[in-house]
């Protein structure tokens, strides 16, 4: 027995040693755990005394603006003429405008009023009378990071290389711009012409002005040389030696973060542009695993600007008392620019042949419940902003005659109206099983969106519930994203009956582009269709109206066209929007930085995360708290 006791003692000692090991780990942990606080505190106090030199290994908190919700995964490239750079902070075109931290566009788009604010361009652009030519001048002050001036030749080279290698610029605008010419600082953009000699689409030419990062001609030549002219090599070039014109440049990137540093020689501090440098010295984005991680970091004050959907965001300040705010203090908190939409698949006969069925389902859906649950009221309701083809901004709402279509609009949850419509159309329950039939067969549809897109899934559940209420069987289906995107972009698919996707949000070519996506014939039958009309709806009348819009400049005529299109859309119901939604979420934590743009500050800076389009103006006006 003694021996056993001795052995036990020995065993306990071993455990003790292990406990000791983990114990000796522990002090290190707690020390280290205190480290974040420690490092943060000295950083704040030290920084003013010794401004971090280039090569700093800790980013002073009061010189760094932290982001979340933009960069997922590791940066691939810094080349503005490539593709798949996965470099959200430096190279990203959004509906809210191009991100001009490192590379700059000719104009900055402001989705609050649809205006184009000159950036590399000097003053306004001018159209020729027949809209076949657009001219503009490059600012004299505009310089590349190597000190050479930005010239019209750079714009030409940027467009030409795009067409040559087929990057986003080339494939996106090649069909609308035939060529660009340079004459000193003067840029002439020649619109592509159709058979009648009219420009194909002047609106898309405007998109070029706000959506194309201009690259330096000399640097493009360097890339082409080192790639031996090989298209794929040019597209995949890492661009480590890139020349930029924007206020920030790359500082550090790995699979956990990307950091940009301010270029203190930035040309934009010239009086002809901003008159100063942007306030934060560093722009940093930690690469979070998912939205939840980004949200936790925002709450902890490790993120200043968060581009993520956060459910019940008002709780962060109302209940948790955190210094977090959004663009508007009250719901919907942000500016909604797009409408996540449920598309009817016209390859399915019962849907293609029965507009009454399409409209009845759409009328029965309880949108208020979708907006309250899926969007936690971060969307105006369809009673506030009646449904049309327009997003809720004042500019777009003014583009159609509200009174003319008032009879056609519906706010939802109209079960009796929907039932009556189906009865009148002869879509009734003929065999008494509780479900309506068509051609002697039970109507059975599915409502589909990608798995894990929880707000969309909630919306699809509500659509299915609406079906049940009116006697139409709708089941939900949530395939993985990789499968979903393969199916819904296929023009001949019959797997998904009602499925979700968002049309375009805002750009100079909207709402035309969105209307085209809703009903444009141009997309029907296109393979790998990421462009529009995912339900394959064909309406020649609508198509003719859509094609008139880009060439129409008279505002009354334009309003008439949009009103007619809205009438067709609300009568035919090829798809129905489920909610309004911002194209960028914009929540800020003001524990370090303040003076972010807000809806009532009169500055007209859009809530575009201080980075996109004219939203970047916010960076020049940020202030430190205290």
């Amino acid at each position, binding site marked *: 027995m003694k*021996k*056993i006791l001795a*052995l*036990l003692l020995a*065993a*306990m000692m071993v*455990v003790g040693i*292990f406990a000791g090991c983990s114990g000796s780990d522990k002090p290190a*942990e707690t020390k*280290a*755990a205190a*480290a*974040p*606080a420690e*490092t*943060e505190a000295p950083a704040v106090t030290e920084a003013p005394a010794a401004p971090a030199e280039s090569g*700093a*290994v*800790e*980013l002073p*908190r009061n010189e760094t603006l932290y982001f979340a919700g933009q960069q997922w995964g*590791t940066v*691939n490239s810094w080349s503005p003429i490539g*593709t*798949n750079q996965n470099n959200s902070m430096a190279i990203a075109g959004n*509906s809210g405008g191009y991100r001009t931290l490192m590379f700059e566009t000719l104009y900055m788009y402001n989705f609050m009023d649809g205006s184009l604010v000159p950036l590399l361009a000097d003053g306004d652009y001018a159209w020729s009378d027949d809209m076949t030519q657009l001219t503009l001048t490059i600012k004299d002050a505009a310089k590349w990071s190597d000190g050479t001036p930005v010239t019209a030749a750079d714009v030409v080279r940027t467009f030409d290389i795009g067409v040559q290698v*087929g990057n*986003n610029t080339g*494939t*996106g605008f*090649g069909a609308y711009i035939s060529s660009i010419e340079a004459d000193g600082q003067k840029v002439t953009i020649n619109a592509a012409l159709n058979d009648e000699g009219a420009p194909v689409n002047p609106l898309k030419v405007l998109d070029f002005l706000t959506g194309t990062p201009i690259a330096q001609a000399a640097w493009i030549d360097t890339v082409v040389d080192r790639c031996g002219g090989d298209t794929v090599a040019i597209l995949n070039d890492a661009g480590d030696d890139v020349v930029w014109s924007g206020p920030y440049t790359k*500082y550090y990137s*790995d*699979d*956990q973060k990307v950091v940009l540093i301010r270029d203190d020689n930035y040309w934009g501090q010239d009086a002809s542009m901003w008159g100063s440098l942007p306030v934060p010295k560093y722009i*940093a984005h*930690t*690469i*979070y*695993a*998912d939205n939840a*991680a980004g949200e*936790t*970091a925002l709450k*902890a004050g*490790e993120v200043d600007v968060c581009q993520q959907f956060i459910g019940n965001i008002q709780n962060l300040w109302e209940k948790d008392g955190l210094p977090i705010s959004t663009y508007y203090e009250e719901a919907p908190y942000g500016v909604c620019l797009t409408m996540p939409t449920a598309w009817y698949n016209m390859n399915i006969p019962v849907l293609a042949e029965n507009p009454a069925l399409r409209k009845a389902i759409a009328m029965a859906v309880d949108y208020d419940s979708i907006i309250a649950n899926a969007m936690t009221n971060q969307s105006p309701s369809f009673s506030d902003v009646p449904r049309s083809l327009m997003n809720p901004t004042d500019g777009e709402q003014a583009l159609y005659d509200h009174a003319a279509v008032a009879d056609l609009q519906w706010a939802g949850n109209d079960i009796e109206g929907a039932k009556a419509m189906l009865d009148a159309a002869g879509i009734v329950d003929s065999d008494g099983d509780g479900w309506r039939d068509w051609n002697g067969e039970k109507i059975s549809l599915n409502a589909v969106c990608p798995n894990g897109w929880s707000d969309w899934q909630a919306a699809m559940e509500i659509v299915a519930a609406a079906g049940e209420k009116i006697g139409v069987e709708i089941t939900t289906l949530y395939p993985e994203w*990789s*499968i979903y*995107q*393969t199916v819904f972009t296929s023009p001949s698919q019959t797997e998904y009956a009602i499925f979700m996707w968002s049309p375009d949000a805002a750009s100079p070519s909207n709402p035309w*582009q969105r209307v085209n996506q809703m009903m444009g014939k*141009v*997309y029907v039958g*296109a*393979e*790998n*269709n*990421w*462009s*529009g009309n995912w339900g394959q709806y064909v309406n020649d009348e609508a198509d003719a109206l859509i094609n008139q819009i880009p060439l129409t400049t008279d505002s009354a005529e334009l309003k008439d066209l949009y009103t007619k299109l809205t009438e067709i859309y609300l009568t035919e119901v090829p798809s129905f929007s489920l909610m309004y939604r911002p194209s960028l979420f914009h929540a800020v934590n003001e524990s370090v930085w303040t003076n972010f743009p807000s809806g009532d500050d009169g500055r007209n800076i859009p809530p575009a995360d201080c980075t996109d389009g004219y939203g970047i103006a916010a960076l020049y006006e940020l202030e430190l708290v205290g």
Partner: protein
Amino acid sequence: MKGYRKYFGKKIIWFLITFVIAVILNFFLPRLMPADPVAAITGKMASGMTDASAVQEIYKRYEEEFGTNKPMWQQFLLFCKNAIRGDFGTSFSQYPRKVSDIIGSAIGWTIALQLPAIIVGWLLGNILGALAAYLRKGWDKVLMPVSLFMSNVPAFGMAVILLVVFGVNLKWFPIAGGYNFDMIPNLSWNFIKSVISHYQLPFWSIVLVSIGGQAVGMRSMSIYELNADYVKYARFLGIKDSKIVGYVFRNAMLPQITGLALSIGTMIGGALVAEIIFSYPGLGSTMYSAVTAADYPLISATTLIITVMVLLVTFLLDIVYGFIDPRVKAAQFD
């Protein structure tokens, strides 16, 4: 010795056959998914593009580049040819990054997190389990239910609890990433401290869960062995207790060693939960995102690593078993 050689010769042949079948499955299974990753890359590039025919062009270009327009068997031969040279091709989801580059930058973090966590969890669990078997009474009464509870807490549950309690509420440890959000990797003491503090929560979330399971297993094995006839007989013969306990421990350890080897072999997938919840860098989350994105080259490469690791550890296990278990040795010689 001749028997030994014959035994291992046979084993090696079986492992090679397993390996070949595994490689074939690694290649073909992901490609049977009804998803088209080329469409995904095209979509990333084409979003917002109005011109449908331009999108088609992009699709064709990528199809050409990835060779997905070739017949499957040709793709397989190409895969084998390149894999031998360590080239697993280009990732779909992180195009144009090379698969080897993605794995290279992630695998260090996974091994540094998983290997110590698995070993520490295994050691602590076994010692606690053995103690429970010897001590019984009070120790066992506390340890047994606690172990059972811990071993049944799902890994993500444990990770979330640690995150909320020690990260969000107590703020003892950072909540995300492999190092401080305001740092750039360097060799300073501050950075190392930061890495260590970020290491804690993911590390303990793995250790705590594995301790419970190991302890429960070791306890039952030890109790079983303690009651075995040879122990009674040895006591009867008057053999020293310490010697007997040595026998008991050796016998009880055997299945535990198999468990250790297997968890080392599959550690890449095992790190997934900790990596996702703590936004910790590593191969688990890489593999997860590869699967959701139908990124065949990346899936094939990561599963190949797991296959090779499992095969290697089971092979090593066979050798080690010969030394620690005479019964196995005897069987091997037969």
